[in-house]
C-alpha cells in the first residue's frame, strides 16, 4: 500500500513541479492561470492521497472546499482578461 501511495505522491509531486514550470514560463497570462488551476487540482489530489495515507477523512473537507472555490479564481482571471478585451 505505502509503495503505491509513494508512487502516487511521486507522480503528483512531479505534476506539481511541471505546473510550476508552466507558471514560470507563461508565456501568456491564460497559461499561468491554467497552471494555477492545475496546481489547485493537484493539491486536491494530494489531500486525497494524504487522507488515505493517514487514514483520516477530516482533510477531505479542506479538499472539497478547494475544489469548490478554486474555480472562482480562474473565473476571476478570465473576467479580467475579458475586460481587457473590451473595445474601447
Amino acid at each position, binding site marked *: 500500500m505505502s509503495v503505491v501511495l509513494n508512487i502516487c505522491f511521486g507522480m503528483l509531486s512531479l505534476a506539481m513541479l511541471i505546473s510550476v514550470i508552466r507558471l514560470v514560463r507563461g508565456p501568456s497570462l491564460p497559461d499561468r492561470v491554467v497552471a494555477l488551476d492545475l496546481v489547485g487540482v493537484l493539491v486536491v489530489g494530494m489531500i486525497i492521497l494524504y487522507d488515505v495515507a493517514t487514514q483520516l477523512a*477530516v*482533510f477531505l*473537507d*479542506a479538499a*472539497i*472546499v478547494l475544489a*469548490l*472555490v478554486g*474555480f*472562482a479564481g480562474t*473565473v*476571476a482571471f*478570465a*473576467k479580467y482578461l*475579458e*475586460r481587457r478585451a*473590451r473595445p474601447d
Partner: protein
Amino acid sequence: MRRSLILQTAARYLIPLLFLFSIIVLFRGHNLPGGGFSGGLLAATGFSLYVFAFDAASARRALGVDTHAIMGAGLLCALLSGFVGLLRGSAFLTSWWGALGGEAVGTPILFDIGVYLVVIGSTLTTVFALAEE
C-alpha cells in the same frame, strides 16, 4: 459586453451548492474542520461567482440585503451571544448551552453565525464595490 451563457447557467447551479456547503461547513465547524470563517468565505465566494457571471448590480439584487446590514447583524449576533453570559451573571462571552431536538445548541453557535455573517457581509461589500468600479 456579452457575458458567457455557459458560465451564467453553471453559476445558477453552482451557487446554491456552494451556499449549501457553506452552511454545512458553518454548523459542522464545532466538531469537524470548518466554522464561521470558512463557511462565510465559501458563501461569499459563491456570490462573487455570481458577480462574475452576471454583474454586481444583479448580484446585489439577488442578495436582497444591504451588505453593511449583514455585517452589522453579524456583529450584533456575536455581541448578543456574549451578552447572554453577562445577563446570566457571568463574564462576557461565557457560553450557555441548551438542547434543541437532540442537538446541543449554545451561544458559541450564535457567535459562529455572527462570524459567518460578518465574513459574508464584508467580503461581499468589498467584491461588489470593486466589481462596480
